[in-house]
Structures are given as C-alpha cells and as structure tokens.
C-alpha cells in the first residue's frame, strides 16, 4: 500500500499525537515509535517533524511537558495529556468517526469496516 499523502494527513497529526499520549506520559522518540508501529507503514513521518506539532499542542495547553531523568542518566522531556487535551481528543475522535461513516457510505466500503454504531442520530 502507498503511504498516506502529506495533504491527506495535514492537520491530523495533532490528533494522532493526542491519541498516543492518551495511554500515558511519553517522550518524542517513544511517541514516534508508537505511531509508526500502529501505522504499520501506511504513515511515514519525518521523526523531527513531530516536535513542532508537540510544541503547538503545548502552546494550546492540550498537553503539558516536564523534564525528567531518563534511564540513561540524561534529562528527557515527557509529555502528558491535559484535561483540555482529553476533551479535544474526544471531540476529534467523534468527528473522525462521523467522517469515516460518511466516507464509507459514499465510497462504498464494506459495512463491517465501519464503526458507526455509536453515531446513530449524529448530525453531520
């Protein structure tokens, strides 16, 4: 499968990072590794390009950061989701489910692939 195009991904990396941080505090390298593992090669990000996104999320107070001592004795910057970030992630997740439902219906994806059951009655 061809990797996702940059335009398709634009604006959605923030949501992906929030989702990775939902499971607990993490640092840049681990976040990238986690993303790449979950994306199974469909998504290929330049590792350095996630930092501007992380800083932007921090500015928006969707995540917070603090330095902690890592296992190798170096200072490492850990990011964690804030309450505001959790709410933003929930909203984004719902938006994506609605989009998935619409795209699935219009583009004709098999029904089994859709997870629209929670969205009955959702206004699009």
């Amino acid at each position, binding site marked *: 499968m061809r990797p996702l195009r940059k335009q398709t991904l634009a604006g959605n990396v923030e949501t992906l990072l929030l989702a990775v941080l939902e499971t607990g505090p993490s640092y840049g390298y681990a976040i990238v590794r986690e993303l790449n593992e979950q994306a199974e090669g469909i998504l290929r990000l330049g590792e*350095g*390009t996630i930092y501007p996104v992380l800083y932007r999320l921090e500015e928006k107070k969707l995540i917070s950061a603090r330095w902690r001592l890592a296992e190798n004795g170096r*200072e490492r910057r850990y990011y964690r989701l804030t309450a505001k970030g959790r709410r933003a992630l929930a909203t984004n997740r719902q938006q994506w489910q609605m989009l998935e439902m619409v795209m699935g219906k219009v583009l004709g994806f098999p029904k089994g692939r859709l997870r629209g059951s929670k969205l009955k009655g959702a206004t699009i």
Partner: protein
Amino acid sequence: MSRALQKYLDRVMIYANRNEADAARIRAELEDHLLKKIADLETDSLSREDAVFQAIEDHGHPRTVGYGLRQRFPWVDVRTEGTARGFVAIGPKAVGVIALGGAAFGLLAFGGMAVGLITFGGLALAALLSFGGCSVALIGFAFGGFALGLIAYGGFACGIIATGGGAIGLWVPQAGKAISYFSRETVPHYLQYFDAFLTTKRTFIVTMLVFYAMLFPVLLVQGILTRKEYQRIKKADPKLVE
C-alpha cells in the same frame, strides 16, 4: 556524541533561528531523541556509524526540521525555501501582514503573484488596491497592463468604471477603444464624479509615482533582509549556502 550528529543538530538550529534559551531546550530534546534512536539501532546490530546515519536520515532534512521549529508568526520571518509566515514574511512563498515573495499572501502583498488587501505584482489580486502586470481589485482600484476592478485603469481595463488603451465598462470616461454601457449623455451623475480623476494626465503620473514609491523601498527591504538571512546561515555553516 558523534561529529555527524553534532553537525546535524547545529544545522537544524541554524534554520530554527530561536533565542538562546529555546534553542538549548529544543536541542537537548532532539539530541536525546537521536541518541536513544542510535542506541536502539545499535541494539538491532547496526554499526555505530550506520546507526548515526540512519537516525539522522529518519529524523528529516535539517532545513525541514529547523524551519518547522521556528517561532510561530514572528515579527520578521525570512526563509530561503518553503513558506515564510510572520508579520513581515519574506520567502519563495510568504504569508503575513506584509508579505514579499514569489507568491505572497497578506494585507500588503508584493510578489510574482500577490493576493491581499493591497497588492503589487506580476499577477496582483486585491480587495482594495492592486498594481501589476495583471491586476484585479474586486471592490477597489486596479492599475496595470490588464486591469479588472471596480475602478480599472490600464492598458486594457475592464470594470464598472474603466479607463485605458482599451476599456470595457459600465462607464468609460476615456479610452483609445471603448465599450461603454453609458454614453456621456446617459451616464448618471454619481459615475461622472470619477471623470476628472480618471481622465487627467496627473492621475496617471500620481499613480505611477505611488507605484514606484511603494515598490522600490519594499524591494530594497526584501533584498537587505534576504541577504542578511543568507549571511547569517553562511556565517554559521558556509556549506549550507554553497
């Protein structure tokens, strides 16, 4: 730390162009990322040299990473590649309050293609005032080789009120070749107010003077700031501008 890694981080930070405190924090974080990655790659049985090379490659081009790390919308953003964003933005593509570039988008935009409130360029699209080879001002004054606007003035002008070598409009006060909906006898008074303004030689001269009075200082500032940016990069790492 390896020299290659050091050099890579130096280059990223040259493009990032952050203040000392921010630069130190960002650099420390990137360094930690790369060292951790190298350690993991070495565990996967890569040689140290290969691991460093691989980690750097996966991290991204220093210019891409560095530009991404620039302050968001600073007072002045000058870039040699990509899109500059700032109060004053200068680059191949520029987005700002004052934007100067190949393609410029701003309140005041100058460029090969300029889009904004007041624009100057080869192709100038503006809401209020546009000057250029091909200029379009939807609700304002367009002046150019080809001018399209509420008031259009140019080699070929097309608008509600149009004047030029050739002109098409509701009212064409003066033109070499004119297609006008109203004639001098039928034109409403409120459209005639523009006659004096559009038909005198003084208007043309004043418009040209305004055009050049705006253009030359802007080109000068653009040249100075772009050169300054090149010099800054060259001074930090001459190989980056070779």
